[in-house]
């Protein structure tokens, strides 16, 4: 127990994940700076980072807590808007440093996501299974529609907010119209960078792995595994569930800010059910509770539609076929065994019980 050679499975899995992310970043960063990356690929780097954060944070709810949430895009939306409002107002007030604006924006987005996650979690986490999925879905749609009807302006007198119309500023020349209802936020300066995305992914991964090896993480996993037994050893179910849900929503909020500031326009219609399902697909495909799986799935499935663009009309058809094929293969024990055998032959000959913790 004292010797470090006996690293636990969890420690091995987290070190491997860090290593993969760092190596992947180093390769992509080198390719990008040497200019050998197509502009299409370069444009996808930040969204990939944002989707990775979305996937691992949803995995915290789905894989670690064991509850199905279909409203993750809602928290991303809240974070994206709150963070971008902060960034735009800082710009309006003359904050020059893009890095500072982005950091503050991401923090504001995370806090906003956490607050909304906490408030929604209070009623929602009293439900289980399908009911929870449906209600989270509904809340995400409510968030979408609410933001679509918001108008926010900023002038020298401060913020003007309305849910009715956007002519509530006194001075149209100097005012900055921030949210313009269904048109969202326009004229965003693209300040998200690949490096910022990488740092966010690393921070989120560290938080998640530290969470999983803390008493809070253990308590949440014990609730997932056996709720009645968890209560019998004195684990307050709701307290730990809402902590996890809030943490996950905060991460989604941060991802939203990163994502939003990679484009010039931000509209709330982007964060609809499709986005929530897409992120859930990352989690399911990568394996519930398996963070590295989520990262790989998020990356692959963000790049895939772009690669398939050559197939034009058949693009989404092929995308679906690949998705189904991967799910079938990853659930086929014979193919899995063959793949494991191959790995053992190619790499270190390790014991068969050495495989990763995730189970799809």
């Amino acid at each position, binding site marked *: 127990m004292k010797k470090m050679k006996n690293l636990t499975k969890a420690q091995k899995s987290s070190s491997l994940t860090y290593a993969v992310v760092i190596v992947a970043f180093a390769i992509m960063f080198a390719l990008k700076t040497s200019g050998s990356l197509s502009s299409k690929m370069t444009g996808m780097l930040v969204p990939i980072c944002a989707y990775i954060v979305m996937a691992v944070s949803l995995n915290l709810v789905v894989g670690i807590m064991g509850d199905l949430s279909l409203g993750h895009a809602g928290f991303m939306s809240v974070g994206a808007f709150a963070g971008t409002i902060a960034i735009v107002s800082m710009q309006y007030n003359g904050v020059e440093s893009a890095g500072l604006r982005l950091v503050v924006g991401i923090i504001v987005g995370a806090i906003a996501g956490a607050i909304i996650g906490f408030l929604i979690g209070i009623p929602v986490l009293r439900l289980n299974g399908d009911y929870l999925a449906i209600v989270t879905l509904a809340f995400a749609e409510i968030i979408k529609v609410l933001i679509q009807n918001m108008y926010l302006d900023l002038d020298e007198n401060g913020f003007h907010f309305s849910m009715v119309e956007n002519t509530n500023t006194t001075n149209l020349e100097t005012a900055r119209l921030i949210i313009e209802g269904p048109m969202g936020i326009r004229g965003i300066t693209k300040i998200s960078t690949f490096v910022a995305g990488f740092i966010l992914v690393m921070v989120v991964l560290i938080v998640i792995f530290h969470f999983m090896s803390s008493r809070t993480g253990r308590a949440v996993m014990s609730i997932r595994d056996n709720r*009645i*037994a968890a209560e*019998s050893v*004195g684990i307050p179910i709701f307290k730990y569930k809402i902590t996890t849900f809030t943490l996950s929503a905060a991460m989604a909020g941060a991802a939203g800010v990163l994502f939003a500031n990679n484009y010039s326009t931000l509209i709330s219609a982007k964060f609809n059910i499709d986005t929530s399902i897409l992120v859930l697909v990352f989690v399911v495909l990568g394996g519930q509770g398996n963070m590295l799986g989520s990262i790989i799935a998020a990356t692959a499935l963000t790049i895939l539609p772009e690669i398939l663009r050559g197939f034009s009309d058949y693009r989404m058809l092929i995308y679906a076929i690949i998705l189904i094929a991967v799910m079938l293969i990853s659930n086929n024990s014979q193919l899995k065994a063959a793949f494991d055998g191959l790995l053992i032959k190619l790499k270190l000959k390790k014991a068969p019980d050495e495989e990763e913790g995730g189970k799809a």
Partner: protein
Amino acid sequence: MDDNKKYVLECENLGIVFGGLAAVNDFNVKIGEKQVYGLIGPNGAGKTTVFNLLTKVYEPTSGSIKLNGVDTKGQTTVSLSKMGIARTFQNIRLFSNLTVAENVMVAMNQNMKYSLFESTFRLPRYWKEEKAARAKALELLSIFDMQDFADVKASSLPYGAQRRLEITRALATNPSLLLLDEPAAGMNPAETAELMHNIGKIRDEFGISILLIEHDMSLVMGICDEITVLNFGMVIAQGTPAEIQSNPVVIEAYLGKQKED
């Protein structure tokens, strides 16, 4: 019995009615310190229901439960764990995806103080408490000689070891009363004998009282100081093992009535 004696558990006229059916009725039991108490009865007699009442999985419809002299009215399963009740389950309920040591450490959660902030930033208190908790978990696991399996996934343990892990996990909450629901179920005679020895050891080492449900009569008669027999939710007999064994009402409940002629 001597009324000045301190009781760990006192149940008075405890009862619960499910839609007109009195699953448990007028249940009276007093368990003293360091006592091993048996609860027996035919299948469906309401034994597990008593456990569920004691741990507030069900709210009793009548009567009162006192734990170490304190009324448990208004308490929940979670708060009762803090007050000193721990239990195991008839159908094993482990945290199957966690390791053996983690299963035990979950039960120590209420005695650990570090916050989520401290664990995220890995501040000194995190390391100190985690290290202490793991050491304590290994120490508890050594009661059943399971310390070598500490980092094995709980679901991969053999059946008997899973039962022992459940008891270890219950002990980790620092209880004053341990409820064991059929601890010997599915065990062979050798394992049962070992379990019997270990129950006595737990009672002596931890100085706690144990209430156990069991169908294995050799275990019940061999280890219990006192026994209550339930049938159809009613207490039909109470006494020492010798008294219970010779009680005609108990024999009737188990074997049926003898022919008169």
